[in-house]
């Protein structure tokens, strides 16, 4: 498995929020990023997606250093389509004044990628019959899938989902998980799932990293980490799993 993403000593501008993160991810791999509220999961996801400036460290994507790029510069970088993040508030991340179909087409043109929206909608489990609607006319679950379709239209090598599946019903979650798995098998793309649903992590992510107070405190094979948690944060996440 070739290395897709390599993080060394990555820190946010405020190193108390996130610091000293080393992480590597292989092509096609699925990694779970779990932690309590405020642990730094979203901060790390946004740094990897180059949405926020780095405080320190290096980020290499497919061997190319991108950590030094300001978010505005990365937005015009040839590697920009290769890493996509779906934000937790998916509905509000979509342009409110236009249809999903138009948003998908604009994204495709802006990123200069070939193809059309149908494949991305299918991979995200988004019902094409709803593509003419604006975000406000979609349920929360459909808005999440629309945001995922927008991310997938870029044909990313790495997709980061920030709590995206938490907004979905159990059945819809199963549907989207299976659609994502098919998409990964077809494209060889890697996936980072941010969340705290440990049942979902166990099922969908062979490897997991536990964040606590801005540091990775435990990482390894998900079954091993959750089976014998060593850090108090991991135990808190697992112990509460059954409510």
């Amino acid at each position, binding site marked *: 498995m070739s290395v897709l993403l390599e993080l060394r000593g990555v820190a946010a501008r405020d190193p108390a929020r996130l610091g000293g993160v080393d992480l590597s991810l292989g092509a096609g791999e699925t990694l779970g990023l779990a*932690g*309590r*509220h405020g642990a730094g999961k979203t901060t790390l996801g946004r740094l990897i997606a180059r949405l926020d400036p780095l405080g320190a460290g290096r980020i290499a994507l497919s061997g190319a250093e991108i950590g030094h790029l300001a978010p505005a510069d990365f937005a015009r970088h040839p590697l920009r389509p290769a890493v996509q993040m779906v934000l937790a508030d998916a509905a509000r991340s979509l342009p409110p004044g236009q249809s999903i179909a138009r948003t998908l087409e604009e994204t495709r043109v802006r990123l200069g990628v070939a193809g059309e929206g149908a494949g991305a909608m299918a991979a995200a489990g988004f019902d094409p019959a709803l593509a003419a609607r604006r975000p406000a006319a979609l*349920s*929360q*679950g459909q808005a999440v899938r629309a945001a995922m379709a927008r991310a997938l239209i870029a044909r990313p090598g790495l997709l980061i989902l920030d709590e995206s599946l*938490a907004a979905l*019903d*159990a*059945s*819809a*979650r*199963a*549907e989207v*998980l*299976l659609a994502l*798995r098919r998409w990964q098998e077809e494209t060889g793309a890697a996936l980072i799932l941010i969340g*705290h*649903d*440990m*049942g*979902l992590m166990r*099922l*969908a992510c062979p490897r997991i990293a536990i964040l606590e107070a801005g540091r990775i405190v435990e990482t390894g094979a998900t079954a091993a980490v959750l089976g014998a948690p060593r850090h108090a944060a991991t135990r*808190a*996440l*697992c*112990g*509460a*799993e*059954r*409510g």
Partner: protein
Amino acid sequence: MTLLMAEAVDLRLPGRPGAVLDRATLAVGAGEIVALIGESGSGKSLLARAASGFLPQGARIGGALRVCGVAIPDAGPARGWSTLRGRMVAHLFQDARRHLHPALTIARQIAQVAARHGTRADLPEAAIAAALPGALSAGQCQIAALALALATPARLILADEPTAHLDPPAAAAVLARLRARAAQGAGVLLITHDLALGLGAADRVAVIHAGQIVETAPAAGWRPRHPYAAALMRAMPALAPDLGALRPVPGRMPVPGDAGLHACRFAPRCPRAGAVCGTTPPPVRATGPGATVACHDPEAAG
């Protein structure tokens, strides 16, 4: 004592040709947590709203609905609600922030509620108590709304996805507080789309599909008999041994309230459905102590 009693409740909303709740029967007794489990749009929140009077103008309730022994009349701006809300029933809304007073700190709101009811209130952590709702996260607002509800003497707590925005430790704390309140004699209706959460937190579960309650059962050792409940079980990531075993529920849930629905609204999605399912309402059978299934052809007992 039965704190929430719904017997064959039909709920109709203005502008909707069909019933959004169809002969819904459900009871929540003192001391128990009952999880009402269903997909988005299944009508689970509407049942709670009917019980606390937060229905849109023009809503009509048929059948019998009683809260703490008081019959709920047709919804509307009924004056009677002020004697029920807060005194007997507290409603935790999913979008908690919108139901908090925006201009008062959480501590102030809790103090007002406690003073009104002559109760002793527990404040949440200082970071939440001292803040205005606008400065809090969605999860913190849920914790604040719970504290507010628990500051009332309400015996029936309607908790709509009370842990939706919380991480596992915080969610566990919320469920523990609901459990403690139930241990003091309250009844809790826990509304969730998460079957695993419902099974872990509740004494009994009720599964709702498109406005019809299809199965009720004790949570411990539950083996679903209704094909929808069984399908929901197979769609739960937390309950599946691996990704290959995960099976989404086939098809889409019909919209409750639409015209021309099948008599059993799960029939169009159901692998076991026969002609009778489209035309004849499913009989409600008792399948054990406190267990019912509404199906013409339920799955065999496991």
